[in-house]
């Protein structure tokens, strides 16, 4: 088991190298050069040279990469072109906000999805199942920005409710913070719940078909025990994978929601960075997000070993 965990963490190294390398290489594809982007095309050559030197752009590519990644490992993501502020502390403080939003959304989605998924599986091929499946399908089909826009429209037209403006930190003003976060969290959670519902249903049905369920019934178990002690635990394995991936992608993928609700999270930082062509910010925050995403996946894998005793014997993908 320990060997497995260590090995799982070691696989992180090549992936992180791959990630950083691909971010770095994609950055090289930017048409024109960064300096002209910053100073304008007709800038004074001397000014250009100075800036290039300052940014290290006069060095060969591999040196640029190594120094970037070397600093990144130390937590130095460089400074923003626009604000000249250190990027890493900014990422961390914004990550907290995104993290809060993600956790709230995830919890909401589980509360909706898992019970509904179970009911849907148990009442297979009934009207209830049909309704749940349709809701789940909407969850996977409705883009969150459309859902958010329509919700805001609906709430304002029908209830005269308008999402609050201006952000307040969780610890600075908890009441206001929750007021701001709750609507986006519900929207994200509702969208996430679609695929969890589908996964819960299909995974549970799959497990219920297995031979060992018959054995458990033959031992005299009540349906409750069959379902909640055995079937659900087995069904949980693919659900956890899905949840892990969802959380991972939310941590970096709430871009749209943060944009709509003006929440100053990591997603918004990336988007602002992109719109202002502030490349160190983009490069740094994307690296950070990918890192978090990969780590979450590893945590999920390790979680498995606690649920599934077979896992340490499986090798590879």
């Amino acid at each position, binding site marked *: 088991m320990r060997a497995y965990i260590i090995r799982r963490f070691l696989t992180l190294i090549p*992936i992180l190298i791959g990630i950083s390398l691909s971010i770095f290489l994609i950055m090289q594809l930017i048409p024109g050069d960064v300096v002209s982007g910053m100073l304008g095309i007709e800038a004074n050559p001397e000014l250009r040279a100075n800036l290039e030197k300052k940014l290290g752009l006069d060095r060969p590519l591999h040196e640029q990469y190594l120094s970037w990644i070397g600093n990144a490992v130390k937590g130095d993501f460089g400074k923003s072109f626009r604000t000249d502020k250190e990027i890493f502390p900014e990422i961390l403080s914004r990550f907290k906000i995104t993290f809060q939003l993600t956790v709230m959304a995830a919890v909401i989605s589980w509360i909706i999805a898992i019970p509904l998924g179970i009911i849907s599986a148990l009442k297979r091929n009934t009207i209830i199942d049909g309704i749940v499946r349709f809701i789940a399908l909407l969850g996977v089909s409705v883009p969150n920005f459309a859902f958010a826009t329509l919700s805001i429209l609906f709430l304002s037209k029908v209830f005269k409710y308008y999402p609050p403006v201006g952000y307040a930190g969780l610890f600075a003003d908890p009441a206001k913070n929750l007021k701001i976060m709750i609507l986006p969290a519900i929207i994200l959670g509702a969208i996430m719940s679609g695929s969890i519902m589908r996964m819960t249903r299909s995974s549970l*049905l799959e497990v219920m078909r297995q031979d060992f369920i018959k054995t458990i019934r033959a031992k005299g178990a009540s349906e409750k025990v069959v379902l909640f002690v055995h079937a659900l635990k087995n069904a949980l394995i693919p659900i956890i994978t899905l949840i892990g991936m969802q959380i991972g992608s939310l941590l970096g993928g709430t871009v749209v929601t943060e944009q709509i609700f003006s929440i100053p999270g990591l997603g918004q930082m990336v988007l602002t960075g992109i719109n202002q062509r502030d490349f160190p910010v983009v490069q740094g925050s994307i690296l950070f997000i990918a890192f978090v995403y990969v780590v979450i996946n590893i945590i999920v894998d390790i979680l498995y070993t606690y649920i599934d005793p077979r896992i340490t014997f499986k090798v590879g993908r």
Partner: protein
Amino acid sequence: MDWFKTLIKEIAKVIKGLLKDKVGRIGLIGVLIVIVLALGAPMIATHDVTEMFAKSKLKPPSGDFLFGTDDFGRDVFSRIIFGARVSLKVGIISVGISATSGFILGILAGYYEGKTDGIIMGIMDVLFAFPSILLALFIVSVLGPNLTNTMIAIGIVSTPVFTRTVRASVISVKSMEYITSAKSIGLSSIRIILKHVAPNILAPFTVQATLALSSAILTEASLSFLGLGIQPPNPSWGSMLSDSRKYMELAPWLAIAPSAFIIGTILSFNLLGDSLRDVLDPKFKL
């Protein structure tokens, strides 16, 4: 011509299966509507998509402007119809990119295993390590936001899913004895892949392609919503929805029409995909 006849027969069988299923019927009809709108856009649209009617800004739906007009006085209905064209085009071309590369990479990785597998899947793991919308955003922002780059970005982002699906199917097909049997009668690897492996992974591949179409359309809409996809004045449902937010109070129809079409289209493709899975891969039917 033999394979062509078989192909037609297979397709007819699948469509028949889809039509028998309520879910499949709805999905198929939805997808057909989108295709008809996209292909017939110039005939169906009532106005030029870029024409601004200065006197009719933010007009509610009427006989002249079926879905009303936007803040520039453009006809929303026509923009929606041409938006279908954009959505479908982005969907098909980007899935074309990812399906083709995923198919080839997945077969290579699954069939040859070992080093080939390690390298291909290593790259896929790296691509997989980015939340997909973010990666698409990143690529588009670097290449510059426009139609072509949007398609390239979405194509790259959805390649790993295809590669994984294809690889997994290849590995499961490879464990079947008919592959060993093919080897034992002396077939070359290429022949085995073409004649025995590929035809037997088409079912999960087709299902994946349908679902990928829906997610490509979704990603395009998201990118356009953020202003990094299709650029104005080209109509895109995502950017129309984004623009609508400024006039939500005055002109709610601006939000409703594109939302309805985005949701309807993605829903149809998902319904079709679900039903296809039941028809093509009955063992997954629960």
